[in-house]
């Protein structure tokens, strides 16, 4: 997989000017920088290979649905060569499907035709749908971060890091139960090290939703 980190824009500019890449097949929109780093770490760790050019960027921590869907709507409207748009968001206080439905409703309120989201068979955190703009149909795949078995008030990417720490024996349930949010258990900058040090099968299982998101590309393999 050719992975292009789109931020900072200056670096992308030089890559474009010096013809390092000529098109993006897929853009993965992450909620924040942490998610971008996690995705890159997972690709490295698990050796995921796809024949597509994947642009990776974040929405600067936007968790407000209208702003996120503004970005999705813009990319759906102006893109011509994108084969799919992937989105990685935090569940926050919502159920996974409700989080995706809020995105769908917001896209519809922007007068975009959007299908009903369908969960992928292999992961109930990942939903597939299509956005129609004019005569073009753009597949949209949304993966939602969060592990509901934790009693946290908000669910986010750090939930998965906490789960990985449990599987790796770096923390126990009793310790975890003391905190109201995963972010209190694990700092953003520790997640990458935790992934790097963990057993591959544990990483694959805990971050299954992101693996499914990336496997969506593997399955399509240049033919979304």
């Amino acid at each position: 997989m050719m992975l292009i980190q789109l931020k900072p824009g200056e670096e992308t500019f030089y890559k474009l000017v010096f013809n390092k890449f000529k098109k993006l097949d897929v853009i993965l929109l992450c909620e924040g920088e942490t998610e971008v780093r996690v995705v890159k770490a997972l690709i490295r760790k698990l050796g995921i290979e796809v024949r597509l050019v994947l642009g990776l960027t974040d929405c600067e921590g936007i968790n407000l649905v209208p702003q996120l869907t503004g970005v999705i709507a813009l990319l759906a409207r102006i893109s011509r060569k994108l084969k799919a748009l992937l989105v990685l968001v935090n569940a926050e206080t919502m159920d996974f499907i409700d989080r995706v439905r809020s995105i769908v409703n917001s896209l519809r309120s922007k007068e975009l035709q959007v299908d009903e989201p369908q969960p992928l068979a292999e992961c109930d955190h990942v939903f597939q749908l299509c956005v129609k703009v004019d005569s073009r149909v753009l597949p949209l795949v949304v993966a939602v971060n969060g592990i509901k078995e934790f009693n946290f008030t908000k669910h986010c990417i750090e939930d998965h890091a906490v789960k990985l720490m449990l599987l790796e024996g770096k923390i126990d349930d009793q310790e975890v139960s003391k905190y109201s949010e995963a972010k209190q258990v694990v700092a953003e900058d520790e997640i990458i090290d935790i992934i790097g040090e963990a057993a591959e099968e544990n990483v694959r299982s805990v971050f299954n939703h992101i693996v499914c998101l990336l496997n969506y590309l593997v399955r399509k393999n240049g033919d979304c």
Partner: protein
Amino acid sequence: MPIESVTIRNFRGIRECSMGDFADVNVLIGRNGSGKSTVLESIYLASAWVDSYDKLHNARKMDYVISRRTGRGSWISSRDVLWFLMDVTRDVKMKFTFTNNDKLEFKLIRFDGEGNVWLPIPGGLLSETALIEYDHYNYSDNKLLSIASRSLIGKNLRARFIELYADIIGFLEGIVFIDSNILADPKRVEDVTWSKILAKRLDKFITGMVREEFEADAEDITYMPIGGDKVLALKLSKTTVRVDDLGDGARSAILMASILLTLDNTAVLIEEPESHQHPGGLKAVMNFVLKVAKERKLQLFMSTHSVELLKILQKLCKDVGLRLKIFFLERNVEGFVDVRVLERIDINTLLKLGLDPRFLDVV
């Protein structure tokens, strides 16, 4: 009567291009050869239907379009270059709609020896004037042409066309093309604009703009005798400098401002206004341009390669209260131009995502 949309067929490098829902300020971006300048030239040529001669560039507009990029050629010698792939069997057509919903489709006709822009005559008007054998009209020279018999006569249809299209004729008549050629020719701009500017003391506004960014001690613009001629010069606190001798940025700014201040209710075509400008100078010039555009009802069409210009225009259009639209043009090998429209907010969003709007063709 501002332009609402344009469709271009078989003109220069464009097989077909449609752009619509124009705003007050329309900016064309895209890679080299995407068709930005050709779109500006098509609007310019529409104005040649009303007036074939360009006082500012001191040339017939058709000849200027042929020669302006390299300084070579004219309608007489090189007209075929205006046809897409020089395929003269296909008509060059430029269809315009205006904000009052009027539609006019201009044509270039190769056997026309002079290089006029023609408008097919509406059917009703033909029978009304008993000139059924003629099918095209040129307002500028008040001529009729028959495609079938290849004949041409002068006939006074002007009054009738003015009745039908007075607002559009007025709008097209005023169109100016500001490109690097004219901004490198202070004498020409002086000759055409400065009597009008001085008559209304509009020079004060230009001095104000110069003072804001280019020469803090600029006091006035005057005429200075040099070499037996009188030339435009900028009075500074301790000296006076010919406009010719100013830096390229300041000179371009003064000339562009001079042209704009003589216009009303028309379109202004500006090719790469960022040329020679420091970002501070670009902001000062654009601030001036937009305020004049708002005051004098000028619809702006600009081509650019500058993301700084886009950012400056976003901010200033909001401040001045003008609607901005950015059009990304991408031409395929068959000559069809795909146009993607970006509103003001879209540019910010793209930049935040790390996508440079000038490279939209990657997505």
